[in-house]
């Protein structure tokens, strides 16, 4: 573990006790995420990718192993506001304007009013929503709402961004556009991003590191370090390198699937 290690999980396990017996959502998951990494978690549903992300965010409590975030427990990291979390749905409050929604975590964290204004303006600019501050969520498209929710997660300047299928509900064209913007944002802000997805092209396009997971029990089957450059135009997806990585991810997914049956 180095100074640069942001997330470190060692033999992490999480078992849910249900009426039909225990469910092993995670079993012996070991992974480190370095500062500035863009890590994608990919796998079929039930593979524990979201559960793993929720463990980092202290929304689930592991039943075995250890996990640290910024060198401390997830609970301490959450309380020190170390991460911003973007959920699958934008989850904006309908009774608050876009600006008001982004301001919400800042109000909760007790930032002074002037600084709130300045931060709201800055992150709105960052996600290309300047001028929409006074609009209500229903006046925006789904893609714009999701961008607003990303702005909200960025507003308090956490170094880590945890994203749980943030673009899962959007159509292909909007998703491509947001992926491109997310990469630019990551490049500009030097944040560490953990990104859950079930789309292979999305995972390969975005990540510096791709974590392939498989279900029953939820575990990591492959970790792929991407050789792609940091600067990635959308058409990088037609290059042989890209296709090769995508192939390896697909193989990993298939392998995990077959040995589960």
């Amino acid at each position, binding site marked *: 573990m180095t100074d640069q290690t942001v997330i470190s999980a060692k033999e992490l396990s999480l078992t849910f006790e249900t009426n039909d017996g225990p469910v092993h959502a995670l079993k012996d998951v070991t992974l480190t995420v370095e500062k500035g990494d863009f890590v994608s978690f990919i796998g079929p549903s039930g593979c524990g990718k979201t559960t793993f992300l929720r463990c980092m965010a202290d929304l689930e409590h592991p039943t075995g192993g250890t996990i640290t975030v910024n060198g401390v427990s997830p609970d301490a990291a*959450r309380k020190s506001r170390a991460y911003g979390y973007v959920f699958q749905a934008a989850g904006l409050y309908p009774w608050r*304007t876009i600006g008001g929604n982004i301001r*919400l975590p800042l109000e909760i964290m007790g930032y002074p009013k002037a600084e709130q204004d300045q931060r709201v303006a800055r992150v709105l600019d960052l996600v290309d929503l300047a001028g929409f501050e006074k609009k209500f969520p*229903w006046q925006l498209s789904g893609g714009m709402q999701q961008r607003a929710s990303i702005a909200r997660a960025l507003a308090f300047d956490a170094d880590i961004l945890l994203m749980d299928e943030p673009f899962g509900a959007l159509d292909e064209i909007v998703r491509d556009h947001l992926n491109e913007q997310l990469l630019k944002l990551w490049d500009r802000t030097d944040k560490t991003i953990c990104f859950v997805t079930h789309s292979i092209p999305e995972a390969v396009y975005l990540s510096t590191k791709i974590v392939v997971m498989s279900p029953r029990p939820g575990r990591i089957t492959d970790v792929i370090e991407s050789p792609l450059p940091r600067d990635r135009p959308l058409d990088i997806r037609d290059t042989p390198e890209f296709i090769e990585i995508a192939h390896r991810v697909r193989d990993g997914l298939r392998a995990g699937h077959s040995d589960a049956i």
Partner: protein
Amino acid sequence: MRSIVPILTVVSTLFVIWYAAAIGLNAPWAYNKAERAGVELNFAALVSDTWSQDKPKLPAPHQVGIEIWETTVEMVLDGRGFSKRSLIYHSWVTFSATALGFLLGTGLGIALAIGIVYNRTMDMSVMPWVIASQTIPILAIAPMIIVVLNAVGISGLLPKAMISMYLSFFPVVVGMVKGLRSPGPMQLDQMRTWSATPAQTFWRLRLPSSMPYLFTSLKIGMAASLVGAIVGELPTGAVAGLGARLLAGSYYGQTIQIWSALIMAATLAAVLVGLIGVLQRITLKRMGMA
């Protein structure tokens, strides 16, 4: 404005039925009088008699209208708007008990709902009692409340307001429990990721989320409050209030008085519920939810 034609159609149909029913129901008494006087009634005379009796079984709409006019506007013009014969006075008495009971009931309802949502013990224990409280006929328990409170020296407005409260807290509890629980797991998780305190989660998420539920409950609660206040006026010896007018009217067979009190009560309820509707529209509009 397009709704004006259907509304007028329904209202005029009701009036036709009402007038026809007045003829039918009051005819026996009209024939009885005619027989004793030894005169033959033709249809025109029958109609005019059944629509103008002193103590009809069913007063005609215009009789009720005239009674209401005489006991409200005319008395105000005479400068006796607040005399004991004025319906305005009685409506005011009932309104004040309704309003106080409504406020108490809303307060109690919200407080219980917060308790139920935040406290597991209350969640398990309070709701059955809340439901049980509403299965007791209010007519049976109202005199008890009046008597008991009188025995400890509380009389006047408060006992009636307590009966109002008894009826109106129920819809508020049920609605607010549902409303305060309306934020989904994702929204609550989101608050957790920001390390929000329980108070912040309440004021910024749970309470605003519950607003649509609150206003729906308040409308039902307001109507229930009015019923409670009227019922509460019955066992107090018919001193004042619309309930007292109803009771006094039934003692002396003053059907016109009963009907005018009923119409006043209905109007009062419509106005009060309408006011909440306006408040709802303004609030939800300002919240961007309407």
